[in-house]
Structure formats: structure tokens, C-alpha cells
């Protein structure tokens, strides 16, 4: 076994609570299971352990991290621990005052989600009135000289508005625009038949992005995350399991990937039991899909095995029931027909989108 590299980035999922209900959310379906959130002091210890383990960047995420009252304090701890900090937010709670406090505490960068450039479509997708608040938050963040990435998750309902979305990103003067096709896990998997685009939409979108990249070079950086359902080979999920990233969930469970908890065959350690260092190097779940030894054929003998690492374990599980299977997205996978099947189902689907809901206290 070669040396295990140290992780570069920690995804700190502070909470799964969120005022928005986006149907393409990658959060787990069983949101009520995660109400028991870590205390401030535990998160502070975790940030220290992450720094000692070699983590360089922390991404505060959720749910909506701004529902945590201690967010400013946690950002300050990250800065004290010499971590570069990113905040992923829906921004409806990002008041100028709050943003200013976060800036002073040392927050390095903001990633603001925007489901659509059309205000009515945006509000329909978030299940709440949110467009105006998002626009105001971007303006306030601009005033504070925050670097801003606008994150637009792409699917059949907004892909045809890509030109407008890109124009809005330049009008709002953000630094980066991330155009990321939906990853079908969590709520997005549940809504897959109602979200999957057509190949025509995907191809037109690629053309629009290519033209915009040329035209806007030097003004707006565009990051286009391609839809793996329309590729020949899977994405290099996580840059390889247990190689670069780790996630701490709201209740302190430590995951190689934010959606891995959906795989019932796996059991996960928590920050209450062990240090992040012990977990990263020794926990069986981090070893399970590390490297290439676990791979079945056709991955095992494939020359791309160290390029895409067999793809996404969560996707393999969700579609085949076996988390060790080759990602069905791969044209060499014995389960590849499932991709075509899901697209055919999507083309027929008349169902309504299922909004992400947090059950009320029982």
C-alpha cells in the first residue's frame, strides 16, 4: 500500500436546516435524523484537528450555515488555525451586518447559490421568495470586496436560460460563475426523473458556455461542471475516496463524501470517538475504497482507473445497490443501460418536483 496522502479540504456541514427547499439538494432525505448538531466547542476542536492533519481549506456548508448563531465564531477559529475558509450559502439570511462580521472574522470567500436568473423561476425552485434577498446579498458582499462565486445548479428547468444566467452573473459583477449540472444523490436523486435534461439541452448549453468563455475571458471565470449522465466516463469523484476530502456532518459523523451516508453497507466514525487524524488514517470506511485494490472489473484492469477511480460510490450504490460496483455512468459498466433507462423515464415523467422538506419536531 502506498503512503496515504493527507486531506486538503474539509467540508464542514454545520446544519441541514435551511429556509429553502430546493428539489435538487444533495442533502440526505432523512433530514430529521440530523437534528442533534455539534456544539460550538466541538466544531472548534474539529477545526484544530483538521488543521493539524494538513487540511488547508474549510468549506462551511449545510443546509444553510447562516442558521447557526456561532458561524462568525467558527470562521474566526478557522482563521486562527490558518485555514482558508469558504462559505456556501443560499444567502437569504446574509444581511450586510452578518456579511461584515464574517469579513472581519476572516472569511476568505463566498459561494452563493442561485437556482435561476428568472426571479419567478428562482422562487419556484427554492419553494420560497428568495431572489430579491440573494440579489441584495450579492450587492452587499460586493461592497465588502468579498470574492464571490455564483453557483447555479443546472437541470432541465433552467438549462435553456443559460445565456440569461451568464448575463446576470456579469451584471452582478461576481468573480466566478459555477455552472454545475445536478449530481443525482439525496433529494436530487429522488427528483431525477423531473430534473434530467435532454441531450439537446446539454449540447446547446455547452455551446453557450464555450462562446461566453471566450467573450468574457478576464472578466468572469466560468466553471462548467459537465453532467456525468451524458459523458462516456464517470467523474473522478472526490479525486479518489479518502485522498483529498473529508466531510463532517452536522451530528459529528465523519464521511469520505457528503452523500456516503446513504450507503447502508458502510458504518461511520464520529468526532466524539476519535480524532480526525485517527479516522483519516485508520477508520475502515476511509480504507474501503481507497486506492485501486477494492475495484471490480472492468475498473481493475482499466487504464483509466487512476484517472476516474471507478467514479462515484454513492451513484453506484443508488443505481445498482452495490457501492463497490463500477459507476453506471461509465460506458464500460455492465450496468450502463440504467443511465439510458433513467433518461427514458425522465422524458416520460409528468410528476411534480418534490420539495426538500424538514419534518417538524415530533
Amino acid at each position: 500500500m502506498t503512503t496515504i496522502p493527507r486531506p486538503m479540504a474539509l467540508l464542514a456541514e454545520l446544519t441541514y436546516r435551511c429556509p429553502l427547499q430546493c428539489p435538487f439538494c444533495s442533502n440526505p432525505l432523512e433530514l430529521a435524523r440530523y437534528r442533534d448538531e455539534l456544539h460550538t466547542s466541538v466544531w472548534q476542536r474539529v477545526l484544530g484537528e483538521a488543521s493539524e492533519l494538513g487540511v488547508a481549506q474549510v468549506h462551511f456548508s449545510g443546509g444553510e450555515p447562516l442558521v447557526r448563531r456561532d458561524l462568525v465564531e467558527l470562521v474566526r477559529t478557522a482563521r486562527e488555525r490558518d485555514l482558508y475558509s469558504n462559505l456556501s450559502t443560499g444567502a437569504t439570511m446574509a444581511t450586510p451586518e452578518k456579511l461584515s462580521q464574517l469579513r472581519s472574522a476572516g472569511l476568505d470567500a463566498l459561494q452563493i447559490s442561485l437556482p435561476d436568473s428568472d426571479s419567478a423561476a428562482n422562487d419556484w425552485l427554492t419553494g420560497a421568495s428568495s431572489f430579491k434577498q440573494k440579489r441584495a446579498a450579492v450587492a452587499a458582499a460586493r461592497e465588502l470586496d468579498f470574492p464571490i462565486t455564483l453557483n447555479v445548479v443546472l437541470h432541465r428547468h433552467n438549462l435553456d436560460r443559460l445565456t440569461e444566467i451568464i448575463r446576470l452573473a456579469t451584471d452582478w459583477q461576481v468573480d466566478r460563475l459555477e455552472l454545475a449540472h445536478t449530481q443525482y444523490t439525496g433529494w436530487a436523486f429522488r427528483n431525477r426523473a423531473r430534473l434530467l435534461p435532454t441531450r439537446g439541452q446539454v449540447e446547446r448549453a455547452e455551446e453557450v458556455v464555450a462562446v461566453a468563455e471566450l467573450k468574457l475571458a478576464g472578466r468572469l471565470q466560468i466553471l462548467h461542471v459537465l453532467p456525468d449522465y451524458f459523458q462516456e466516463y464517470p467523474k473522478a469523484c472526490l479525486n479518489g475516496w479518502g485522498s483529498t476530502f473529508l466531510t463532517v456532518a452536522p451530528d459529528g459523523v465523519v464521511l469520505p463524501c457528503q452523500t456516503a451516508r446513504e450507503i447502508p453497507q458502510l458504518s461511520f466514525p464520529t468526532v466524539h470517538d476519535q480524532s480526525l487524524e485517527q479516522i483519516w488514517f485508520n477508520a475502515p470506511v476511509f480504507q474501503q475504497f481507497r486506492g485501486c485494490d477494492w475495484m471490480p472489473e472492468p475498473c481493475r484492469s482499466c487504464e483509466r482507473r487512476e484517472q476516474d477511480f471507478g467514479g462515484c460510490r454513492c451513484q453506484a450504490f443508488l443505481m445498482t445497490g452495490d457501492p463497490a460496483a463500477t459507476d453506471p455512468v461509465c460506458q464500460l459498466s455492465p450496468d450502463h443501460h440504467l443511465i439510458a433507462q433513467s433518461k427514458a423515464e425522465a422524458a416520460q415523467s409528468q410528476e411534480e418536483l418534490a420539495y426538500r422538506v424538514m419534518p417538524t419536531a415530533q
Partner: protein
Amino acid sequence: MTNDSQKATQVKLARGVRYRWDGVREQHQLLYPEGLLVLNETGAAIAQLCDGRSTDEIKRKLANSFSDGQIENDIGEFLARLAQRGLVRHDDDP
């Protein structure tokens, strides 16, 4: 843009880009919202001077620290590569 005016422009790390010494790996890093770039000694020295000085000032400053006659070319190339990745910006405004 002429060569002369280019020399007068200020070179700054782009918004959200930060230099960091990684004590665990013992390496220089340039961090930005989506990831990081590992720097060698020369790159680290240049990046740390991208604080609003001109390219010429950076060259003068480093000419003494690096005896290698290549350093002037290296600085130009390195800054061009960083600019292409959106990690530094050249400001014309004083």
C-alpha cells in the same frame, strides 16, 4: 497595451487569493476559492510580493535574492501564468 504601460501597472493577488505556508507538508501554497496551487521557492517569493508593486519593482527586489540570471524571465512567465488562471490581476489604477 505597450510594454512601458505594462511595467507601470500594479500586480496584485486577485480577490480571495492568499499565500500560505503549509507547516504540515512544509510547502508554499497559493489558496483560492476552488483549490490551491503548490509553489516552489521562487514562486513563493514572487507571490508574496504581489501586493500592488509593479512587475519591475518585483524584478528589482528579487534580483538580489536570486543570483540566477533567469529570474527576470521567470517572473514574467510566472505572473502571466497566474494571470491566465485568474490568480493575479494587473491594475492600471494607482
